[in-house]
């Protein structure tokens, strides 16, 4: 039942984005958010390696899947339940570089958690980003619940839950897909399959090639897509979103991708994967690849690229400066908000 769409790229040629209904501006916006996600991430590593912040966890390599899929949603009315790599998703949904950096430095102003959670633990009620903790896969059930509420109120919002192929092994993943299938909920289950769960390769995680094949067991379609092809990701997500809005139920999208960095700043990926493998995947960098396409399509002209680069750098600089200076929480902040309180003190 898993529909292979890896061949999607062939279609459309130099005006592929237009044939997908994306204007040049939209296509460039996607590019810019991917660039921004990458740039913030790179800066965080730099700062971490200088000992100025204790922890990074990265989106690098997965920006195509993240932004491509998020771009098919409607920020503000649709919902996302991202996981820790999904900088690309949350930036598309309205988080800023500054928000990212405030979280990275665990400042009081961090909109995700007030400095309580590690970086990468996104959440914003206002932006419709469901708060995430560290335990993997729990968010798939939250997404199903968010979608249930939309159905109960007869709203057409779509909810997308993102997770790794490791998280697919958790019972919650099964329970969420089963529930969403039964109730034909408007959910996109998006598996960013980067081949590893920390050190554990896919072959030790499951006996199958495609996580997407599991969708058949829940009565909805599974789609495999090249996660490093941002437009292909956009395309399958758009189809899934349309299906969901029509009330036809969930879709499982498996984006095959790769992470460029170690699992996190606490990990040493040389213990479990070859430098050559990383190098091969770096050749398939979703940002480079998209840039090449956009240049060939005549959409990304040199001055435009330069402007984007400047804006991105500017945001990273500003965000870093702002966040590094921003105040820490105080010891008094330790005991607030165990329960709902009407006002932030």
């Amino acid at each position: 039942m898993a529909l292979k769409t890896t061949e999607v790229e062939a279609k459309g040629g130099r005006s592929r984005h237009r044939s997908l209904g994306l204007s040049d501006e939209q296509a460039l916006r996607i590019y810019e958010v991917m660039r921004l996600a990458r740039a913030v991430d790179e800066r965080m590593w730099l700062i971490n390696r200088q000992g100025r912040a204790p922890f990074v966890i990265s989106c690098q390599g997965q920006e195509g899947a993240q932004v491509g899929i998020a771009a098919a949603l409607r920020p503000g009315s649709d919902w996302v339940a991202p996981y820790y790599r999904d900088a690309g998703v949350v930036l598309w949904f309205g988080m800023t570089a500054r928000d990212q950096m405030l979280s990275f430095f665990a400042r009081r102003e961090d909109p995700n958690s007030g400095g309580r959670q590690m970086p990468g633990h996104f959440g914003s009620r206002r932006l419709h980003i469901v708060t995430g903790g560290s335990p993997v896969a729990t968010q798939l059930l939250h997404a199903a619940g968010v979608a249930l509420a939309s159905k109960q109120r007869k709203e057409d919002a779509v909810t997308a839950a993102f997770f790794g192929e490791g998280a697919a092994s958790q019972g919650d993943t099964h329970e969420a897909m089963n529930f969403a299938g039964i109730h034909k909920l408007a959910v996109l289950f998006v598996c960013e399959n980067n081949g590893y769960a920390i050190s554990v390769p896919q072959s030790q995680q499951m006996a199958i090639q495609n996580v997407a094949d599991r969708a058949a067991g829940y009565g909805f379609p599974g789609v495999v897509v090249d996660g490093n092809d941002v437009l292909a990701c956009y395309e399958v997500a758009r189809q899934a979103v349309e299906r969901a809005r029509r009330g036809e139920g969930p879709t499982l999208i498996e984006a095959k991708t790769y992470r460029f960095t170690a699992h996190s700043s606490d990990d040493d990926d040389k213990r479990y994967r070859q430098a050559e493998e990383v190098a091969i995947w770096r050749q398939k960098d979703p940002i480079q690849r998209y840039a090449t396409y956009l240049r060939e399509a005549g959409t990304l002209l040199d001055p435009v690229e330069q402007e984007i680069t400047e804006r991105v750098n500017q945001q990273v600089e500003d965000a870093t400066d702002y966040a590094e200076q921003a105040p820490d929480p105080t010891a008094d902040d330790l005991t607030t908000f165990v329960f709902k309180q009407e006002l932030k003190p």
Partner: protein
Amino acid sequence: MAVKTVIEAIRDGMDEEMARDESVFLIGEDVGNRGGVFLASDGLYKKYGELRVIDSPLAESCIVGVAIGAAVNGMRPIAEIQFADFIAPAMNQIIEEAARFSYRTAGDFNLPMVIRAPWGGGVHGALYHSQSIEAMFAHVPGLKVVAPGTPADAKGLLKAAIRDPDPVLYLEHKRTYRLVKGEVPDGDGVVPIGKADVKRDGKDLSLIAYGLMLTYCLEVAEKLAADGISAEVLDLRTIRPIDRAAIIATARKTGKVLVVHEDTPFAGVAAEVMAIIMENAFDALDAPVMRVTGPDVPAMPFNHVLEEAFMPNPEKILAKARELAAV
């Protein structure tokens, strides 16, 4: 005022809250057409339809996880766990997710949701239909835990729980369902979460309990009165946040306290009550605080001899209360 059983009070409480607020809905195993295995939701499926009374798949993590998501998106779910003994598959969603949503977002998210779970023994339910689960959950900051013992409190606390902006674990003692009857105030009575209740005044010693044990302690107090011992009975009602002031007050008043629960003793609710008294009323004690609890075994056996041996009952409580009174 009408006399109701505990199960009727719960059904009425759900019904009234569902009528009052469209965002309230029920999800759990067999809660729909079947009306729940104890008939707690009997009639609600017909009345409110399949979008508000949802028969879930057989998966507790799903029940709670979906409830969390729905609460995020503006609903007020009541998640029913068929027996408290089957809540463990949902532990991760309850403890690591629901209890931490507010804290981990510094108040940006809150979860107005109730988890209802029938608990306790004395119903030939054996190891897996008799358990007490309150200590484990009460240990977790970020959850509220209530355990009413009377129909009025059952209804009033259920309403409070449904209207509460935070996750509440609502424990309903199976043995009390049809055993305990009492007046339930008409109208929209809410019993506040976090307030214990002196169910009987006394001066010689205090019995502190909740759930089914409240009924037993009231019986014991009656018997003690016949001996000329005046026992105060404090019904905790809410286990978390616990009513420290009420505990300290009764300890200071009588100087002798017996804490009673079915749950096993180690790091249970009685231990915490003892610690609170130790820290706040040590100087007022005329005797060490004592406890009567379930035994230190994994769970309540099926055979009736073993079940009786397991359950605290009025005789066991009375014996210990007399021991305490005599110190």
